[in-house]
């Protein structure tokens, strides 16, 4: 790495998009700065005061000029807005075939879980050329998952899920930072993202997996907590069946409906009384304090694995 690198490496599909917008903005900024600086210099020298009692003729303004220098910048800013918003829109919508990774931030480390059950701390191994979706939350303060080489950043907020995604384009080792101030060791809360060639990634996956996939762990937890005593697969239990639940629209007591997405399932485990399914009683105890955020994520993966109903779109509605 050069000592005086001016731009970070581009290692995701977003990186060139963001950098191109940056170049455009830089061009605009340099143009206007130079225009202002040069005018000031020129006027300051050309019209310097030559005698103490000189009186320049008053010029009170010109509407045409005012309109000109309002409309042109306004047009430029609208280009900036549209361009920036389109990138943001893409960054907000992960593709359906993305690789899922769950992320939990806590003071002061990142805990990551792959679908295959591989767990990492402050490191993330992902394959090059494949979209990766992160579903994140925090156990304490707000953290922010920041990978400069990917030009992505997203806060991990306690109490809810947030999402971000990226598609690495270049194998290598990149900084992972926490970008939202979170206390004493904020500056040490980070590590590395390893983008690997697909073959290396497969090798890494098989080396790291021990103790079952995320869904399998979820099932174990499901059994340990005896969830199945009430949530019977055929719906004969005291609680609704979870088969094919994920992605479905759920009818709630009181008439409202909600889409069964990650946020809804998380809430239903930790605050089960917040939304009651129509036809069932508010009998489920809370599992707050009994299940960790990672455990919740495993349970979600297990419930997802119970099979989506045919034809339902992936994803769902955010918590609240």
């Amino acid at each position: 790495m050069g000592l005086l690198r001016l731009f970070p490496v581009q290692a995701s599909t977003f990186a060139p998009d963001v950098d191109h917008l940056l170049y455009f903005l830089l061009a605009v900024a340099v143009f206007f700065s130079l225009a202002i600086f040069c005018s000031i210099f020129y006027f300051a020298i050309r019209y310097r005061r030559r005698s103490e009692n000189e009186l320049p003729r008053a010029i009170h303004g010109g509407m045409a000029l005012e309109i000109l220098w309002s409309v042109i910048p306004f047009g430029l800013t609208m280009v900036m807005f549209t361009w920036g918003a389109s990138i943001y829109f893409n960054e907000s919508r992960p593709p359906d075939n993305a690789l899922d990774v769950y992320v939990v931030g806590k003071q002061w480390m990142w805990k990551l879980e792959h679908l295959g059950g591989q767990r990492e701390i402050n490191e993330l191994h992902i394959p090059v050329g494949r979209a990766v979706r992160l579903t994140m939350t925090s156990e304490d303060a707000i953290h922010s998952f920041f990978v400069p080489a990917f030009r992505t950043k997203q806060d991990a907020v306690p109490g809810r899920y947030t999402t971000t995604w990226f598609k690495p384009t270049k194998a290598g080792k990149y900084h992972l930072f926490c970008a939202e101030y979170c206390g004493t060791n904020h500056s040490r809360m980070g590590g590395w993202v390893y983008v690997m060639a697909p073959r290396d990634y497969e090798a890494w996956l098989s080396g790291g997996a021990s103790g079952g996939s995320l869904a399998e762990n979820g099932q174990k937890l499901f059994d340990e907590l005896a969830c199945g005593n009430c949530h019977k697969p055929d719906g004969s239990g005291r609680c609704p069946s979870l088969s094919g639940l994920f992605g479905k629209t759920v009818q709630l007591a009181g008439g409202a409906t909600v889409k069964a997405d990650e946020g809804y399932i998380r809430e239903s485990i930790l605050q089960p009384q917040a939304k009651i399914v129509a036809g069932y009683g508010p009998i489920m105890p809370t599992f707050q304090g009994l299940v960790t955020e990672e455990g919740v994520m495993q349970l979600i993966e297990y419930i997802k694995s119970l099979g989506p109903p045919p034809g339902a779109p992936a994803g769902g509605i955010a918590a609240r």
Partner: protein
Amino acid sequence: MTEHIDSIRTYALVLLALLVLTAVTTLVAFVDLGEFSVVVALAIAVCKMLLVALFFMHVRHSTKLTKLVLLGGLLWLVILLMLTLSDFTTRGWIGVPGR
């Protein structure tokens, strides 16, 4: 100084109207109007506010500036509420958690 001094009768009538509106809003609250319960309750509250402001606070005799200050303040309250709600009401529109 041109001061308008309203009659006792005016003030008494305003008080009466305020008390009646209080009774009305309390009673209407028990009638199921669905979504409109909120609307009616707030509409009555706005009426009461206007009565107090216009008569008791003499806004109807006040300068344009006072009226402007009052409207400006309410407008800013609306800005605070609406732009904050622009986040909370549009969460989940695209079906991605946290977006």
